């Protein structure tokens, strides 16, 4: 009963906010609505007794990714896109149809393969202890591979942004 009271409003807010992310003209408002979507999604994770995932969701997305996107928008000084919303083009109708078709396929698959609802969960389900134990025992190889990916993307980001500065200074030297 309490699950129902929490689930329906949260799901409605998540759907509304994610629609606003896609439809709003200004990128900075889209980023703020994305923050709201991810925040309320963390509620749903907590409802599914995935407490650690919910906390990590707020920490990583709200604290890291959204702040990074907001900084990029402020750095780029983007304008509102006005020309994009003047008319409904054929491409938009096709995309809407494609999105709806995808949703239909996914929900048909979900209704067909209804998984059995397990009545009792293990006592340590979703705790930080259990998740951490699994991460360094069963999934230790994936854990190490992910850390390698982080290093690679860090180096890649620095190289991408620095490379331009170097080439500009080389051009100045040539002149």
């Amino acid at each position, binding site marked *: 009963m309490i699950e129902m009271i929490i689930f329906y409003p949260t799901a409605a807010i*998540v759907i509304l906010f994610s629609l606003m*992310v896609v439809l709003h003209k200004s990128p900075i408002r889209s980023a703020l609505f994305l923050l709201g979507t991810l925040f309320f999604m963390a509620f749903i994770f907590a409802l599914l007794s995935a407490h650690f995932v919910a906390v*990590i*969701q707020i920490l990583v*997305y709200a604290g890291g990714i959204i702040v990074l996107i907001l900084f990029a928008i402020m750095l780029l000084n983007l304008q509102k896109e006005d020309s994009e919303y003047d008319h409904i083009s054929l491409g938009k109708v096709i995309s809407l149809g494609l*999105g709806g078709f995808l*949703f239909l396929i996914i929900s048909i698959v979900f209704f067909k393969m209804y998984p059995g609802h397990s009545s009792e969960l293990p006592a340590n389900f979703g705790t930080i202890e259990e998740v951490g134990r699994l991460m360094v025992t069963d999934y230790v190889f994936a854990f190490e591979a992910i850390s390698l990916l982080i290093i690679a993307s860090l180096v890649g980001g620095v190289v991408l942004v620095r*490379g331009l500065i170097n080439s500009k200074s080389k051009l100045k030297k040539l002149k």
Partner: protein
Amino acid sequence: MITTTHYLVLAAIIFAIGCFGVLTRRNLLVMLMSVELMLNSANLTFVAFAKSLGDTSGHIFPIFIMTVAACEVAVGLAIIITIFRMSKISDVLGLTFMKDIKSG
């Protein structure tokens, strides 16, 4: 009674919205945000199935997906900033420099 199917259908709706965003928006940053939405709906599916099957392994993958999303945003924003510094373009339709590169 909220069953697993409710969560899965919510995830499907958010995935479809994200897909629509990637297909229609022409701003690179908003496309990146729509991809984040799609990744998050995949997280929701993993967590819903983890609860339904009573297996904590389903909680490991959302954490890995979040890590991959963070890497993707870092590299993606670096690319967007580089493109914007080079040509002041934030519209996907304007990105045609690959066509202008002379081969050989």
